[in-house]
């Protein structure tokens, strides 16, 4: 079953054409990495999938809904099934971690026990801390914990591991892959870390010059002669 279906997507900001005919599909349970150089349109693409950015042309179907034709309340209904981790992650700075979790539990009308989430994400030492006072890594972990409050069908992560040390990256990825295996949820993410793509993603989409220059499985890319995804990226993308 396709969770996301994108055909001939076009988006520009004034005269700056960012996406000029992008095609993309994500099936249930897939982990897909979106790569490309800075300014390639990765975040724009994700924000369109998140239903918070309009586009100029093409078709975008998310969870069986053509998002162009949806009313505000219908969009809110689609968003109930999507969770996101943004870069940079920001929440109300004057709320403590536990309070944020409780507030978002209310937003998602979640039945998940906050104590369980705190335990699962090892947040006990931080639950009384203000979100603003956490390190970048813990902010990302809290953001992911909030994203999982809803047991989303689609998880969208915009550069989730940027700025994290290797341990924090590992912890974050263990949660993501565990969620993916446990719930069969689909994960779409952007990253500049090609090792992560190689280790964790089923498919890779390379956005170059506004189109999906390559959209294939990680395995196929590696068997086509590249030693690593990093080598593939350096070969395909010029400065």
């Amino acid at each position, binding site marked *: 079953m396709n969770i996301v279906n994108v055909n001939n997507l076009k988006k520009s900001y004034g005269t700056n054409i960012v996406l000029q005919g992008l095609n993309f599909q994500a099936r249930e349970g897939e982990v897909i990495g979106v790569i490309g150089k800075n300014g390639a349109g990765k975040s724009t693409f994700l924000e369109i999938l998140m239903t918070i950015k*309009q586009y100029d042309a093409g078709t975008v179907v998310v969870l069986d809904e053509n998002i162009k034709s949806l009313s*505000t309340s219908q969009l809110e209904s689609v*968003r109930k099934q*999507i969770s996101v981790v943004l870069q940079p992650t920001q929440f109300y700075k*004057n709320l403590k971690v536990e309070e944020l979790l409780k*507030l978002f539990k*209310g*937003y998602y*009308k979640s039945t998940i026990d906050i104590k369980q989430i705190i335990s699962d994400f090892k947040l006990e030492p931080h639950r009384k801390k203000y979100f603003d006072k956490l390190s970048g890594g813990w902010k990302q972990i809290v953001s992911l914990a909030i994203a999982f409050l*809803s047991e989303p069908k689609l998880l969208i992560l915009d550069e989730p591991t940027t700025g994290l040390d290797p341990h924090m990256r590992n912890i974050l990825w263990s949660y993501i892959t565990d969620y993916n295996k446990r719930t069969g949820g689909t994960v779409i993410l952007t990253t500049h870390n090609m090792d992560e793509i190689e280790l964790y993603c089923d498919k890779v989409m390379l956005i170059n010059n506004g189109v999906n220059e390559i959209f294939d499985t990680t395995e196929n890319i590696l068997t086509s002669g590249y030693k690593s995804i990093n080598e593939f990226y350096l070969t395909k993308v010029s400065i």
Partner: protein
Amino acid sequence: MLATQLKYDLLMFSREIFYLVFTIFVPPATYIFMGQLFGDQTYAGNLSYVQTYTPSYILLITFTVVFFAFGFDQVTHRTTGVEKRIHLSPVSKNTLLLSSIIRSVIITSLGYFIISLIGLLMYDLQFQLLQTIASYCFFILLNAVLLIIASAIYSFFKNMNSALVFSIVIFQVVIFTGGFAMPISMMPKFIQVIADLNPMYHMNILFIAVWNGQLTFTTSTLISIGYIGALVIVSGIILRFQNKRKIG
């Protein structure tokens, strides 16, 4: 959901020292201080200090709450990315807006009662039931007007620092040209011209009149009402335009 959002909105407000100082402490302290200096004076309409400045300082608290805790907060959330993250959650905009409005009404009502209590204890403030009810209803209406105008003004800010500088400057302008420091008639001519353009000055005049049961529909009253009404309409148009631009 509304109750949960409101609970956390009030909690966040109580933790923001900057807002608390400018909203809950500065206006009452100024009210007491000015009363000690000019408590025996008689003002326009043959009103005493307490009759003139009690509604004025209630309005000043309303202004600071709405402009700092509502308007400036919007800019903070927009520029730091909080607004975007909340927008991605399945919480309706109406719930967030309603919670912000109720929060403002609760905090400004608290200001209303603090100033009234100080007036009662220190300056022999008199209450009449009907007038008090009319004043409170008018105060709620002014709350709504200020919320709309503040939302429209702060929708232009994309940067927190410029919004902060604007807030502090506008606070000073409102104090001096809104009739909160001393009567505008005693001010230099150019201040009087600025006062005529300051909606807070018009709201202040109207609120003092309602508070003291002196509201009559003279030409100047109608000009004040018309001016405020026009600003509300313009603000509504701005907000509609800005909301369309947000989803780009």
